[in-house]
């Protein structure tokens, strides 16, 4: 008897856009486009601006599959079902972005860069008679530190007399107000965007404002006026949503350009300043237990390990200023650098962009990673679903004591998760309970960790990994391990 075929997971496809659906199939990123979207899409793919933007990488490279390729795909009953259900007319294939990330995992700098890209596109396409019909950060992913616009069904042919930018309010809610809340009230994007798919409402921010703020820019135009005007507007009157076309296309274009320029000025005003400090900012320079020699040795250890095993994709857990992420990226690896402090991550992003390093910084706390979000928890997958088995090396440098002590995660669980994340290497630093940084965290609860010794640590590692080599730094209780996952 033949074995039944292993069940293939059902295809989950995006469903919000009336013009089409995005889905993943056999590692490919595909999109069914229906009658509503086809004409706009073809106009975009044929436009000069569209070709230029795709060649520059600002819009994800996309091609329409030919008839033979479509037939081959549609031979699969699940793809067929999706295609028919959505009234498909054509299938697109997009270049795959290595590690999808979502706005609630970004730093404010990244949201600013994504907003700038959105406005760049809206303005670049005007000359080809095209426009952008939505303005949300969910249209954007990051390739290393660079934003890439992925939703090619967001482009539409514009009516020449139309002077309004319909996604204006959405752009304000999803880009400008979260940045304003970050700048004015220190709220991270995780705090404002994790549970709010559509960003912050002006009315919500209005309640947080002081009286004096309400009359000054950018609060006045972003928060106060929309709140006051919205409150006075009759809710049953939908006339404001009817398109008003101007007789003079030149005037419409002039107004639209000015509106977009105004949004850009506001966006730049909300750009996070470089050189901000958090409690973690000076961790690499003053706040660690290494002498200059030890630190040199640590850098060598990490660099040599990644080079020896030719690591191509690296996860740096608790990356802090991104020093070791940069070492990995300079060696040619694509790095995802996670830390829970978005302020130091802002610097990681800035440096990566400046040095053109393939580092994607994400504000993720590995002990409380981002959950699956949206409808059925499936619209945005959880951080761990995206990360498991995606890296051939994981770095956990000077981080396990934070997980052990502050978060009370057992050592065995930390190593089990590391073994799930990496396909090959784990470079991990052992910090003993008598280390001053460890003690600073225990605050009198030393009793809980008294049994943690290097021997216990090695025994736990041995359950999933073999020790390739270990370096003990003289005069400290710190040890660096290069571990290889057991086959």
């Amino acid at each position: 008897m033949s074995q039944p075929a292993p069940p293939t997971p059902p295809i989950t496809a995006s469903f919000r856009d009336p013009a089409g659906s995005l889905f993943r199939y056999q590692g490919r990123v595909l999109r069914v486009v229906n009658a509503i979207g086809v004409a706009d899409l073809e106009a975009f793919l044929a436009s000069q601006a569209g070709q230029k933007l795709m060649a520059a990488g600002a819009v994800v490279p996309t091609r329409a599959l030919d008839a033979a390729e479509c037939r081959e795909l549609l031979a699969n009953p699940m793809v067929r079902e999706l295609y028919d259900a959505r009234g498909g007319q054509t299938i697109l294939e997009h270049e795959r972005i290595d590690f999808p990330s979502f706005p609630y995992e970004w730093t404010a700098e990244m949201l600013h860069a994504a907003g700038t890209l959105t406005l760049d596109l809206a303005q670049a396409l005007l000359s080809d008679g095209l426009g952008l019909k939505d303005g949300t950060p969910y249209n954007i992913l990051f390739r290393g530190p660079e934003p890439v616009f992925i939703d090619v069904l967001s482009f539409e042919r514009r009516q020449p007399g139309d002077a309004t930018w319909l996604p204006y309010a959405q752009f304000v809610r999803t880009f400008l107000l979260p940045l304003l809340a970050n700048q004015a009230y220190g709220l991270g994007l995780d705090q404002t965007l994790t549970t709010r798919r559509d960003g912050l409402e002006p009315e919500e921010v209005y309640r947080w404002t002081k009286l004096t703020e309400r009359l000054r820019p950018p609060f006045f135009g972003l928060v106060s006026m929309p709140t006051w005007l919205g409150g006075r507007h009759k809710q049953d009157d939908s006339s404001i949503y009817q398109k008003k076309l101007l007789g003079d296309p030149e005037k419409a274009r002039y107004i639209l350009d000015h509106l977009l320029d105004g949004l850009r000025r506001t966006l730049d005003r909300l750009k996070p300043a470089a050189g901000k400090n958090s409690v973690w900012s000076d961790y690499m320079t003053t706040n660690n237990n290494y002498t200059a020699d030890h630190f040199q040795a640590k850098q060598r250890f990490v660099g040599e390990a990644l080079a020896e095993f030719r690591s191509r994709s690296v996860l740096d857990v608790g990356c802090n200023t991104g020093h070791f992420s940069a070492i990995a990226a300079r060696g040619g690896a694509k790095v995802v650098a996670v830390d829970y402090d978005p302020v130091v991550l802002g610097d990681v992003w800035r440096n990566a962009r400046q040095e053109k390093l393939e580092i994607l910084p994400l504000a993720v706390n590995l002990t409380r990673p981002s959950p699956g979000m949206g409808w059925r928890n499936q619209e945005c997958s959880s951080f761990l679903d995206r990360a498991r088995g995606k890296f051939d090396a994981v770095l956990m440098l000077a981080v396990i004591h934070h997980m052990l002590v502050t978060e009370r995660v057992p050592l065995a669980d930390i190593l089990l998760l590391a073994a799930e994340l990496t396909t090959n290497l784990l470079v991990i630093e052992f910090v003993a309970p008598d280390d001053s940084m460890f003690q600073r965290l225990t605050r009198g609860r030393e009793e809980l960790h008294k049994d943690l010794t290097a021997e216990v640590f090695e025994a736990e590692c041995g359950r999933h990994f073999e020790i390739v080599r270990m370096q003990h730094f003289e005069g400290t209780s710190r040890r660096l391990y290069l571990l290889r996952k057991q086959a």
Partner: protein
Amino acid sequence: MPQKPAKQLSSFPLRALLLVALAMFATEREARAYTDPGSGALIWQMLVAGLVGVSFYFRRITRWFKNRKGPRV
């Protein structure tokens, strides 16, 4: 002692201005279901667009004057 009244006096015009502006606008919206949160931003966009539209004609007029001067030079 004399400092306190001086400080109050200097901020009086500002406070009055604020009070007038707030009295005009700052009536809190009553909470209702089916509110339309995008409407305020859209109306604001239209008001701004109207102002920009006026500046468009202004620009056209000044351009016309410039062009009229231009050929004579």
